[in-house]
């Protein structure tokens, strides 16, 4: 009896061993050595992630813990797990190099829709590509070095011969190659352009009947994002500028009460109403930070923008 587990070699005997596991583990006869080749999310999860996060996503606890992925609100939007899987976190190594974009989509879709999670899957190969560390390709490097002095828009306008005039007239917006994620790789601003810096803008009260300090007063991250952008738009209008003139944005988000981290997905829902739309197609460069707190404890969002006067 002593050696029941370790002498159990048939797969059927595995059931006794995995009493703790709610789902099956990969069968040894299905084992393929070397690189991960499957694009099936469940297969990838069970042969890769489940070692630490466990087959049922329950996580594990020793001297430290492996977080549970089951019923995990951080999985609501694909951007978060994509970032973690690709870049690692804490003791977890960066795993992005093991899986291609399609495999990542399969894996994250599995996470969002299984293990007790029931989120609308939103992973796309574009999102994954955008989440990967930026590696400068030779083509991009050439582009930056050789085309920087002139603007493509100026060339299109036939002003290529007069670089000073051309520079004054336009910003070059470099999209992220192969990605539809709605931010820029880079914004190229001519030396003589006028830059306009707006102070950090914060949310507006959307329900003044709500108690002071309550979460309803300013709304959730999405609502606060919307009201903040509405304020920014009003400020820009007063300066004779538009949202389309914004080239740079820094976003500070606070984790909503009870949540483990910032609601990036909620922010994105507000953001895409103002940038990359048919009416306002221009995109800015952007950074998003999670911060411990803002001046008002009810605020979850503060946004700074820089615009170029056209």
């Amino acid at each position, binding site marked *: 009896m*002593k*050696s*029941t*587990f*370790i*002498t*159990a*070699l048939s*797969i059927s*005997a*595995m059931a006794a*061993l*995995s*009493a*703790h*596991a709610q789902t099956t*583990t*990969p*069968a*040894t006869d299905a*084992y393929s*050595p*070397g*690189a*991960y080749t499957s694009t099936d999310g469940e297969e990838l999860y*069970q*042969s*890769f*992630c*489940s*070692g*630490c996060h*466990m087959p049922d996503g329950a996580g*594990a*606890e*020793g*001297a*430290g*813990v*492996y977080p549970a992925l089951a019923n995990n609100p951080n999985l609501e939007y694909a951007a978060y797990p994509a970032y973690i899987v690709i870049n*690692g976190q*804490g*003791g*977890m*190594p*960066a795993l992005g190099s*093991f899986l291609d974009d399609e495999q990542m989509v399969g894996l994250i879709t599995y996470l969002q829709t299984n293990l007790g999670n029931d989120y609308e899957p939103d992973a796309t190969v574009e999102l994954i590509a955008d989440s990967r560390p930026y590696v400068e390709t030779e083509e991009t490097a050439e582009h930056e070095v050789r085309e920087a002095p002139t603007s493509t828009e100026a060339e299109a306008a036939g002003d290529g011969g007069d670089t000073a005039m051309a520079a004054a007239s336009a910003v070059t917006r470099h999209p992220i190659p192969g990605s539809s994620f709605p931010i820029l790789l880079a914004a190229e601003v001519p030396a003589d352009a006028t830059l306009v810096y707006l102070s950090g803008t914060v949310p507006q009260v959307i329900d003044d009947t709500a108690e002071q300090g309550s979460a309803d007063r300013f709304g959730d991250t999405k609502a606060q994002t919307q009201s903040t952008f509405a304020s920014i738009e009003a400020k820009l209008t007063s300066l004779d500028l538009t949202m389309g003139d914004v080239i740079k944005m820094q976003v500070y988000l606070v984790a909503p009460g009870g949540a483990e981290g910032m609601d990036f997905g909620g922010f994105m829902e507000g953001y895409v109403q103002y940038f990359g739309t048919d009416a306002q197609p221009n995109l800015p460069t952007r950074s998003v930070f999670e911060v411990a707190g803002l001046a008002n404890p009810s605020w979850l969002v503060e946004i700074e923008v820089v615009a170029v006067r056209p």
Partner: protein
Amino acid sequence: MTTITRRNLLTMIGTTAGSSAMYFAMTSMGHAQPSNYTGPIELEGDPKGTKILILGAGLAGMTAALEMRAVGYEVEVLEYREKAGGRCWTLRSGDTYTELGGAVQEVDFAEGNYINPGPWRIPHNHYGLMDYCKRLNVPLEPFIQTNYNAYVHREDAYDGKPVRMKEIMTDYRGHISELLAKAVDQDRLDDLVTDADKQLLIDSLKEFGVLNDDNEYVKSLSTSGYRGYEKQPGGGVGAAPIASDLLDPSEVIQSRLWEYLATHETMNHHSPMFQPIGGMDGVAKGFERQVGDLITYNAKVTSLQQDDDGVTVTWENTTDGSTQTSTADYCVCTIPFSVLGQIDHNLSGDLSAIISSMPYNGSTKVGLEFKRRFWEQDEDIFGGISYTDQSISQISYPSTGYMSDGPAVLLGAYTWRGPNTFKFNAMQPAERIEIALQQGEKIHPQYRDEFKTGVSVSWHKVPWTLGCSGIWNDRERDYNTAVQIDNRVVCAGEHLSYMSAWMEGAILSSLDAVSRLHEKIINGE
């Protein structure tokens, strides 16, 4: 004409270039130890009852405990496990190991048999560890790293049949020596080799590659003397040796089996290597004999706070669930960053950022016990390692108990990072053992008939570390910050060394941390 002996050469260098030049010259000639271990540390000054709290009773923690008590500190050690040693660990008959996820393995090896899931061999040039083995009376025996009669194997080479390392090594060396000797002889390397050196180079290639007078590597009793004979020389009637056939040069190159020849040549694998008699935890037990009375076991640290007055550590007694507090003037923290990053602490921002961003790598080992030593009895392999391109990567035969009857344990798999490590990590223990058998039997067909029992350890599932060893995202940028004393706390361990995953790294890191902390306490710097 003056003869330059080694001694008067050293004198000349010492006179003209100063003593540091002499030291480096001696090092390169093999006289001095090229290590920052300079012998037992000598801490001077009375700490006047200053209390040190040490977190972790692995080799770094116990090194600190031993040395700091010796100079007069009051020392308390907290350890998560029920025993000392941390990753310096041996599983033997009767042991029970529960990995994360709950799978329990009861080790059913025969009495005296064991497997070292963590460190398993000691390079002779790991001077700190070797010195502690001597001082702590840890008896060592040779660990056979290099065995030319063991196999090299790739599934796509030689129809997936294993080849003796001596054959690949000799033929690889012989064939490339022949090529090079011919190139030199035909004046094709005139740009690279002076006329004066040409003949010397050819002479050396003849010796290195066992070439004949025509600079050819051919089937002969000479080459068989290196690669093995068709029939070995004997005595008495019919004792004449018969030469063996050579492997085809192009096949040797294409086989890629030469990939496995260089491992033995690295500093960390130079012969002789050693192992403690009876299991690697002999090292842990050696330290524990000295400092075991200072260690509180089953203590799970949950908080590490420091202020101007001291250090306060909150911990859970995992046997009864109670919450306890320990205080001290200073702290040596050897908790792996994979765990420390999850503990509530108020270490400074720069250090904290490094702690929270150090990934830990994975590794898998599988110990297989067989009913008899078929590798010795059938294949004349006594210790050493066979290498394969399969996931198990190597099979290491026991460096002890040769010729004995009865069951013996070999290392049936050893993965290091990479997808195979994650795949093993996602398996249950019996599945890992089954894969080790499936792959190992391609090298040793006796596997299935002779298998008795096994045990496997995947380091991401080890509860007290959550991984095998620390990986630096940017060591050049972060190292000096990570090793600084942060007010009253200094971190130490293999992760804070340039010898990641080696016991020597843990010991040297700890000795350095302890020396600097003592200096600060005594001299206030």
